[in-house]
C-alpha cells in the first residue's frame, strides 16, 4: 500500500517537474524580448528574472531527482491543513465545476452588465451550488446580504464598482441615484 502510494506520488512529482521545466523554458524564451543591457545597469532588465529562473531550474532538478530515491517521510502530523487538503476531484461532478466556473462567469458578465444587476443572481446560484436547497433560506439570505452590500458600498462609502456598458450603464446609474 505504502509502496503503491509512493509510486503514485513519484509519478505526480515527475509530471510536476516536467510542467516546471516547460514553464521555465517558456519564461526563458520570453525573457529574450527584454534581454538588453541598460545604460545605467549593464546586466539588463532580464538579469533578475534569469537569476530566478536558474534558481527554479535547480529546485526542479532536485525535485525530479528526488523521485528516484525511495524514502519514508518521518510522520509529520502537525501539518494538519496540508493533510486535509482534498487530493482529487473524483466523485464530485458538475457542482464542483459549477463552483469553479460561476465566479468567473459572474466577473465576465459583471463587466458588461454591472455589479448592481448581476450580484443577486450570483448569490443565488453560488449558494445553491454550495448546497443550500431550501428556496426560502436562499432568497431571504440573498435579499438580506444584497441589501447590506448595497447599503454599505453604495450608500455609505460610495465604492467604485463596475457599472456595465451601454444601456446597463444607464440603468445602474439610475439605480445608484435612487439609492444614494
Amino acid at each position, binding site marked *: 500500500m505504502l509502496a503503491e502510494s509512493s509510486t503514485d506520488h513519484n509519478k505526480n512529482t515527475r509530471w510536476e517537474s516536467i510542467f516546471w521545466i516547460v514553464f521555465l523554458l517558456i519564461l526563458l524564451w520570453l525573457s529574450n524580448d527584454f534581454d538588453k543591457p541598460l545604460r545605467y545597469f549593464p546586466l539588463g532588465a532580464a538579469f533578475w528574472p534569469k537569476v530566478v529562473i536558474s534558481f527554479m531550474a535547480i529546485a526542479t532538478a532536485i525535485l525530479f531527482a528526488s523521485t528516484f530515491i525511495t524514502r519514508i517521510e518521518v510522520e509529520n502530523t502537525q*501539518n*494538519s491543513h496540508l493533510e486535509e487538503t482534498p487530493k482529487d476531484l473524483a466523485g464530485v461532478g458538475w457542482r464542483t465545476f459549477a463552483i469553479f466556473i460561476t465566479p468567473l462567469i459572474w466577473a465576465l458578465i459583471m463587466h458588461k452588465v454591472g455589479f448592481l444587476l448581476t450580484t443577486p443572481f450570483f448569490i443565488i446560484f453560488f449558494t445553491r451550488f454550495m448546497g443550500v436547497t431550501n428556496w426560502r433560506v436562499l432568497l431571504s439570505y440573498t435579499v438580506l446580504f444584497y441589501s447590506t452590500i448595497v447599503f454599505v458600498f453604495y450608500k455609505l462609502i460610495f465604492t467604485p464598482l463596475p457599472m456595465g456598458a451601454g444601456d446597463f450603464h444607464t440603468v445602474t446609474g439610475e439605480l445608484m441615484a435612487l439609492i444614494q
Partner: protein
Amino acid sequence: MEDFLIGTTLLFTSPAGVGIFIGGLIGGLVFGAIPGLSTLTLAAVLLPFTAWMSAEYAIMLYGVIYVSGVYGGAITAILFNIPGSVENAPTAFDGYAMTRKGEASKAIGYAVTCSAIGGTLSAILMMIATEPLADFAISTFGPVEITALIFFGLTVVAGVGSRSLCKGWLSLGLGLMIGTIGSDPVGGIPRYTFGTLYLAGGIGFIPLILGLFAVSEVLLQAQKILKGTYKAPSISVKFPAAAEFWAMRWVVVRSTIIGWFSGILPGVGATLAAFLSYNEAVRWSKTPEKFGTGIPEGVVAPETANNAATGAAMIPLLALGLPGGALTAMMIGVFNVHDMEIGPLIMIEAHDLVWILFASMFWASLAILLLGVIESKGIVHLLRIPFTLLAPAILIFSTIGAYALRDNIFDVYSMLIAGVAGYFLRRSDYSVPAIVMGVILGQIGENSLAQALTMLDDSFIGFFTEPISGVLCTAALLTILVGIIRRYRQFSLVK
C-alpha cells in the same frame, strides 16, 4: 514627559478631539478589515476634509487611522483567510489555521495584544529618539544592506507551508517571477507584459493575495462540503492566558525590533516588517515545521512587527521628510494643506503638533487593546454562519476589494485566476505563503539589488565586504545550509 502630557491634554480636552480620535480609531479598524477598502482609501477620502480641521486634529486623525488600520486587517485574515491589507498577509498563514483548529478567539487575542504592545513600544521609542535614530538608520542602511536583509529574509521562506523543501523553493521562485511582471525598476522596460497595458503596471498585491488566500480557500472548502468531509471550525472565546503571552516574550521583543527598524527605512515600512519578522520567527523556532499549521508565534510575530513599524515610520517622516509608505506620504499632504513643511525643523516650528501626533499614536495603540479584547469575544461568532452562506460573501467582498482598489476589472480576473492556481498549488503541496513572500520581498529586493549593483560596479563580492551586508549574507547562506540539513534529517533513506 512634559511634552507628552501637553500633547495628551491638547488631544483629549475638547469633545471634538475625542470625537475625531474615536472616529479615526473605528474608521481605521473597519477600513483596515475590509480588503481593498484599506486605510489608504479612508485616508484619501478624508484628505480634502482636513483643510477644514485644525492642523492638530488633522494630523492626529491620520496617526490614529494608521495605527488602527494596521491592526484591523488582522481580523479578517484570521477569521476568513482574507488579509485586510498586504502587511496582514503573514498573519493569515497561521491565524486562519488557528481558526480552523477552533482557536480563532485565541488568535485574535494574540493579534490584538501584540499589535498593542508593538504599537505602544514603537510610540515610546518614537518619542524618545526620533532624530538621532533616523540619522543612524538612514545613513547606515543603503541599498546594499537592504538587499542583504531581504536575501536573509527570503532564505527561510521555503520552509513555510510545504512539506517539501524543493516545492517551497519553487513556490518562492514562482512568487519572485510574478514579482518581475511589469516594468523593470531600473529602465522601465516592460517584462512579460505581452504588450498589455494592464500587466505593464505589474500584478496587484491585493488581487493576488485575495485570490491565493480567500478564493482558493473557498474552492477547497467547497470541494470538501461537496464530498461530505467538511468540518466547521469549533468556536471558543478563550483569550490567551498570561503564561501563554509570557512564552511569546522573545518573539515580541524580536518582532518589535524588526518592525521598528523596518519602519524607519524609507519605502520599506510595515509590509516588510511583517514578512521579515514572520521569517525570523520561523528561523529562531525550535519547531519551524509547525509554521503554517496554526501556531501562535505565526500570529504574534507579524502583528507585533507591523504595528511596531507604524511609530517608527514617523521618524524619517518627521525628522527628514521621507515617507515610509503611501499613508505616511499622505501625511505630508496634511502638513502641506496647513502650510507646514516636514523636515528637521518641524520639531521646533510645530513642536506641539508633533507631540499631539506622538500622544495620539500612543493612546491609539492602547485603545486597540481595549477594543480588541471586547472584539475578540464577539467577532468569533461570525464563524457560526454556515460556510455554504459564508462562501458567496467571501467571494463578493474579495471581488469588491480587488476591483475597488484600482477601478479595474482585470484585477478581478487576476484574483480569480490566482484563486484557481492557488487551489491546484495547495492541493499539490506548494506553499502559498512562500509565493506571497516571493512577490512582496522580490519586488523590494530587485529594486535594491539593481541600486546596490550599480553602487558596487556590478560586483557581488561587495555584498560580503561591507560589514552589515557581509554578516547578513553569510547568515543567509548558513540558513540555507542548515535548512537543507534539517530537512535531510527528517527523512530516513531506504537502501
